């Protein structure tokens, strides 16, 4: 209440001030009074923490990647750009040298130096810090800061993806001096970074208010204030957009796109998701241990129909375990085939004896999961598979994921965290990875070699070969690479990021004035 009143007073004062200007200046500044000073966005869930090293959830990183800068930055174009590091180079197989940006200040006025960068990286895997991103930068052996604007990172083995790792979660740079003096809890409650917005206030499940950082090295953002609101239900979230109460909404379901696009003042913007929606397979459980059965299941899925009917065309049919847009994506491969006759043939060849195959689905863990499960179950029944759909709750899924105890196939939305198959296929399917249900000696050898090679030509060959092995064995049944859609007011110029980051920096978010 108090805040609203203060806002009103501020607004009134601003209006009053603006109204007096044209009188003295003669008029041309009138248009300026309509300039929007506030950006309001709505996402489906609230922030839980501001400390970037304690969360990897998409609701949190939409904000934390704007409160903080990383050394490197992955832009919506999918490429790596300079962040707090202006340039970097590989000195030898395991040593990277980063040149850091000078003259950058944290929101509390402290200067950013290599000591902060070193502290931030080491904090992620420091056992005493107890972070939730302890494995994000685990390839690092040591970090040195020979001078205030140089950082030298040595990796345990060659790591071609170190700059990419530094761009994603765990890589946000936090202020050493401030954090050490106030401790973790205060830092989480009153975060200080170098990013384009600084922390204003937060009322849980109501709104977070972030103020523009006027001295941001990348230029002050377009508005004075950014408000992030959680609106959990889809219908009210869309209503808030249509009514003009919010400027941008995330997680726009495909069947609601027409409503937003058909409205005179709003539009839809989408980014092809940097990842895939797949049915993970417990390949240890008969009959799913038989590649022929998995091939049959894959051939029985009419992906075109899923894309067209359930997703209203907002997605593409995958062709491989590498997301389109990633390094080493093979554009020459055709989309995964739909051939029910061949599916029946392979089931027969596999000696399939009507064993039950379970689809364990969540509801809205990944968009459309339950609807897709029902559609796929019907398709599988058509080729004679004894399929059963079981609905499980999100936290049960997390537990089964941890224990690797899925009964059959399950939804997963592997995100390509590094823009590279290493950060997706190998991260999840590799030995000891969270979806390690299937092993193949050649696949493992190639995956391991590609991870530790800085020779991109060699890596390209390795991933080509791994894709071939994957398509025969199908440890995942890739189903769709969807678009992640946002609803926007037409005056908002914004490009969504494929990996769920939400970029409000000046280069990516502008408000077009009437």
């Amino acid at each position, binding site marked *: *209440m108090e805040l*609203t009143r203060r806002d009103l007073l501020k607004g009134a004062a601003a209006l009053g001030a603006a109204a007096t200007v044209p009188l003295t200046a003669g008029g041309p500044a009138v248009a300026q009074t309509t300039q929007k000073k506030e950006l309001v966005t709505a996402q489906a*869930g609230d922030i*839980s*923490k501001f*400390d970037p090293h*304690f969360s*990897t959830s998409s609701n949190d990183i939409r904000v934390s990647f704007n409160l903080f800068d990383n050394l490197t930055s992955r832009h919506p174009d999918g490429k790596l750009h300079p962040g707090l590091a202006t340039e970097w180079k590989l000195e030898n197989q395991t040593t990277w040298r980063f040149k850091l940006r000078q003259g950058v200040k944290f929101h509390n006025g402290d200067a950013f130096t290599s000591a902060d960068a070193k502290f931030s990286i080491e904090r992620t895997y420091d*056992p005493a810090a*107890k972070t*939730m*991103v*302890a*494995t*994000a930068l685990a390839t690092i052996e040591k970090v040195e800061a020979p001078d205030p604007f140089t950082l030298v990172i040595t990796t345990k083995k060659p790591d071609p993806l170190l700059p990419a790792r530094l761009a994603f*979660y765990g890589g946000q740079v936090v202020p050493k001096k401030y954090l050490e003096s106030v401790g*973790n*809890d205060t830092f*989480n*409650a009153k975060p200080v970074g170098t990013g384009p917005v600084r922390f204003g206030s937060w*009322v*849980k*499940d*109501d*709104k977070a208010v972030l103020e523009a950082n006027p001295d941001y090295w990348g230029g002050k953002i377009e508005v004075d204030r950014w408000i992030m*609101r*959680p*609106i*959990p*239900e889809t*219908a*009210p979230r869309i*209503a*808030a957009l*249509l*009514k003009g*109460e919010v400027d941008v909404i995330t997680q726009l379901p495909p069947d609601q796109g027409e409503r937003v696009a058909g409205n005179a003042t709003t539009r839809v913007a989408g980014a092809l998701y940097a990842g895939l929606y797949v049915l993970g397979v417990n390949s240890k459980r008969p009959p799913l241990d038989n590649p022929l059965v998995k091939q049959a299941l894959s051939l029985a899925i009419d992906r075109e129909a899923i894309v067209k009917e359930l997703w209203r065309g907002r997605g593409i049919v995958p062709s491989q375990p590498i997301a389109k847009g990633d390094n080493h994506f093979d554009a020459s491969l055709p989309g995964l085939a739909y051939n029910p006759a061949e599916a029946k043939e392979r089931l027969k060849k596999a000696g399939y004896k009507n064993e039950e195959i379970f689809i364990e689905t969540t509801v809205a863990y990944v968009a459309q999961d339950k609807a897709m499960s029902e559609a796929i179950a019907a398709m599988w029944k058509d080729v004679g598979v004894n399929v059963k759909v079981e609905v499980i*709750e*999100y*936290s*049960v899924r*997390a*537990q089964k*994921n*941890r224990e690797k105890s899925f009964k059959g196939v399950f939804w997963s939305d592997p995100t390509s965290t590094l823009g590279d198959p290493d950060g997706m296929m190998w*991260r*999840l399917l590799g030995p*000891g*990875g*969270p979806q390690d249900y299937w092993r193949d000696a050649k696949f493992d050898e190639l995956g391991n070699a590609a991870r530790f090679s800085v020779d991109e030509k060699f890596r390209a060959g390795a991933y080509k070969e791994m894709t071939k092995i994957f398509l025969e064995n199908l440890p995942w049944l890739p189903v769709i690479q969807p678009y992640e859609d946002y609803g926007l007011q037409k005056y908002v110029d914004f490009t969504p990021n494929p990996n769920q980051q939400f970029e409000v920096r000046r280069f990516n978010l502008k408000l077009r004035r009437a």
Partner: protein
Amino acid sequence: MRGFVPFLGHRLFRALIALWLVSTVVFVVMRLSGDPVPLLLPPDAPHSEIMRVRRDLGLDKPLPVQYVIFLSNLARGDFGRSIHFREPAFDVVRGYLAATLELGLTAFFLAALIAVPIGLFSAMRRNTLVDHAAMGLALIGQSAPTFFLGILFILLLSLKADLFPTSGRGDWRNLVLPALTLGAFTMASIARLTRSAVLEVLGADYIRTARAKGVSEMWVVAKHTLKNAAIPIVTITGLQFGTLLGGAVVTETVFSWPGIGRLAVQSIYNRDYAVVQCTVFLAALMFVVINFFVDLIYGVLDPRIRAG
């Protein structure tokens, strides 16, 4: 007020038992329901990392040991720390209480102030068009699911008629739609119950006597009818009040209202044990307190109860 102290002592003792039972059930059920750690870590976190975090949070200790720690902390008023927010659980819940009270009280008074007169009026004008219309509306209010009603209000009164904001907390305009949505069921229940309670009293001998004595109709209603019909109305109103404060989950979700119902449900999904325990404890406490006051009001309304 003879016997008030033993009455109070007895109620307090029962309240403590109820709170202890509720806390214990919540403690056990939450821990049976699953492990919060996989929800905190990135999906590719290795097993060793999960074990490390479990140890840091004290979740590796045997359940009885965790229970003793929980009870001894609770006795000191310490509800533990939220693992989701990384803050003391009570501080988290406290942040939601104001919004819950704001919405719950508004819905409650809106419901009571509208429903009791409507029920009374319906009873006085039994079987007229007004009665049928009012009770028809009450039936709709009682049977329409909250999420349907909420979204209907948003579409009609906010998006089409542009009278109120679609969602969120702010000034009184933000309060109207969620309060109406939340209060609809209560309003309908109270109206229907008031009508039947009043009808029952209106048929009683003492009302006939009062009328025969020539007491004015106003006085018959205000003094003789309402007071005698009040006990069931107070009972349902008290119960509904507790529900309004603790059970507004759907309304809070539809209108993105930052109340404790929504916090509780999200915390269950997050397996944020401490926050769930704290919200349930406070909700149980509210019920106990409300029931206590309802009992006191009974005594004021009906001397027979006081004597018994």
